[in-house]
């Protein structure tokens, strides 16, 4: 955050190891807390809250994909399929067994983790491009299965209506109430990821990403950790899917198609591979971009296109801009928005001196 370290010297070990190195860091955390918990829900209109809700749900999924792709170096084009596994598991449990969300949410996550680990099994034998294709197969097969097995998909149009989540007898209905519901899980996911990546498991992931043979030689069981990476990543995806389900009140496979997997890949590439802040920035960027495009096109678009064409044009334009952004970031700034943010921060850290 906005540290300014010039002129600050640490004279005790306790000071050096403190959770907040400077008072301003603690201030930032408190300010963020106040902003998100008090100011945002009180001041923002429902429309803006709904945007923030969607961004926060995407953050959970993006964090999961970043653990797999950014930290462990295993590519996955099937993230949306794991989200759908979580979504339909939770929806079925909620509708058939009438279970509350604090049971269905972890259950959806665990089911997705299980399926994710199964899809991850080929990662032992195959790498890189082969794995990309294997996860693509996972995506298509899961999509087909959900679509064609009425027992899972609930029959009509492969979608299941889900009751609103309720806590202590209160139903969470309005955007403001759902905001806190989603915020809780989003913060939980962020903190869990931050802790995971500097734990033993997280370090093993990074070792596998950087040089898998070397990692095996220093005693990391590659197969086990790859499977763990797939399982954890899919768990996040599953939770993300469950959140979508509760948020929209419906589990629908159309929200979890191949294009969504690619959206999530775009999030972590634009945000920055192997970085928690990058996942957050990327998720926000990708979730907000369509809104910006729509606003711009609704004012400029009618000059070039007729009103009936416009919705199709907007969705196509979104695809083009996404693709272009992925390529631009890959070619010009592989570390993504996170790196841009770091550059800015490093400049201000020692400001007004140059280093």
């Amino acid at each position, binding site marked *: 955050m906005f540290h300014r370290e010039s002129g600050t010297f640490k004279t005790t070990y306790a000071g050096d190891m403190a959770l907040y190195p400077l008072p301003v860091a603690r201030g930032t955390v408190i300010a963020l807390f106040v902003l998100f918990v008090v100011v945002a829900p009180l001041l923002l209109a429902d429309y803006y809250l709904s945007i923030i809700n969607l961004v926060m749900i995407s953050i959970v999924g993006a964090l999961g994909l970043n653990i797999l792709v950014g930290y462990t170096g295993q590519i996955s084009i099937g993230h949306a399929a794991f989200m759908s596994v979580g979504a339909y598991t939770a929806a079925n449990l909620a509708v058939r067994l009438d279970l509350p969300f604090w049971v269905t949410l972890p259950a959806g996550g665990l089911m997705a983790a299980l399926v994710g680990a199964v899809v991850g099994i080929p990662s032992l034998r195959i790498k890189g491009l082969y794995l990309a294709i294997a996860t693509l197969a996972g995506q298509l097969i899961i999509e087909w299965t959900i679509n064609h097995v009425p027992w899972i998909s609930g029959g009509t149009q492969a979608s299941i209506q889900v009751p609103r989540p309720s806590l202590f007898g209160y139903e969470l209905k309005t955007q403001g109430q759902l905001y806190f519901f989603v915020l809780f899980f989003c913060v939980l996911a962020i903190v869990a990821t931050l802790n995971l990546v500097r734990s033993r498991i997280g370090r093993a992931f990074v070792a596998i990403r950087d040089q898998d043979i070397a990692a095996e030689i220093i005693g990391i069981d590659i197969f086990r950790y790859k499977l763990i990476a797939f399982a954890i990543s899919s768990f996040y995806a599953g939770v993300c899917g469950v959140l979508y389900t509760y948020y929209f009140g419906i589990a629908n496979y159309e929200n979890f198609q191949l294009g969504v997997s690619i959206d999530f890949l775009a999030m972590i590439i634009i945000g920055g591979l192997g970085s928690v802040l990058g996942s957050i920035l990327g998720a926000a960027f990708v979730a907000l971009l369509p809104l910006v495009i729509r606003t711009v096109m609704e004012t400029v678009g009618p000059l070039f296109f007729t009103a009936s064409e416009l919705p199709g044009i907007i969705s196509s334009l979104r695809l083009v801009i996404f693709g272009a952004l992925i390529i631009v970031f*890959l*070619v010009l700034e592989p570390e993504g928005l996170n790196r841009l943010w770091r550059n800015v921060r490093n400049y201000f850290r020692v400001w007004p001196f140059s280093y």
Partner: protein
Amino acid sequence: MGEDLDFFFSLVVSGASIGMLYSLIALGFVLVYKATEALNFAQGEFVMLAGFVAAALLTAKGMPVVLALIATIAIMIGFSFGLERVVLRPLLGRPIVAVIMATIGLAAILRGLPPITFGGDTRTVPLPIGDNAFSLGPATIAPIQLYGVIVTLLFLAGFTWFFMKSRKGVAMRAVAENQQVAMAMGINVERYFAIAWAMAGIASAVSGIIWGNMLGVDVQLALVGLKVFPVVILGGLDSIPGAVVGGLIIGIVESVASAYIDPYVGGGTKDFVPYLLMIAALMFKPYGLFGKRKIERV
């Protein structure tokens, strides 16, 4: 019983001819992989783009068919050249994930552009080949499929000759084998990358013309690209004969399976079974039927 057998036979024949056309698309994929070790996730979109170009040129007034076809191929070659230069060359030496993601981004761009520039209508690729189906015993084949199979076979023979006998082909194999050693032997590696992409452009152009004629050209045409992955995995990512055998197997299995299973599950078997086959191949024979095993030594 005889009727059942005839039905089965015609399924196999139509599956095999479709399979050969899958091979043609897969060929573009394999050529790029063989030379540059890059996976092109936008292969289906290449085919779609070629289809749009062909549709636009063939329906243009006063354009001779032959000229239009040649122009389509030339445009696709130019497109592949430019693409290699602008997008893929800066990614040389970066992790394989980066290249895959770049082609996924490219696929998104190519899929988004046609509705903006060409509009959302389905276009036709008219070819002067008539529509009298050829019959082969109890089976019939549409003329475009028959011509497609012939063109595919010609291409395969041509590319096989190129890789086996010609000087450029041997150099390209050397590049695929080991880029550094190839450089040390005085081979201009980047130039061969460009040539490989150009050849993939030719294969995409021809696939675009044939598939565009069969299915009509719109954004959905890009979905045939999804069939490429099972084909190349089954055959081996770096093998041209593998692409053919893989294409035949996928084509036949898909045609037979969809005829016998579809009535029970309500459709979609066609898109699903090839991937099951592919998963099995990945589990038991990850380098495919003809692919080169890669052994990693420490």
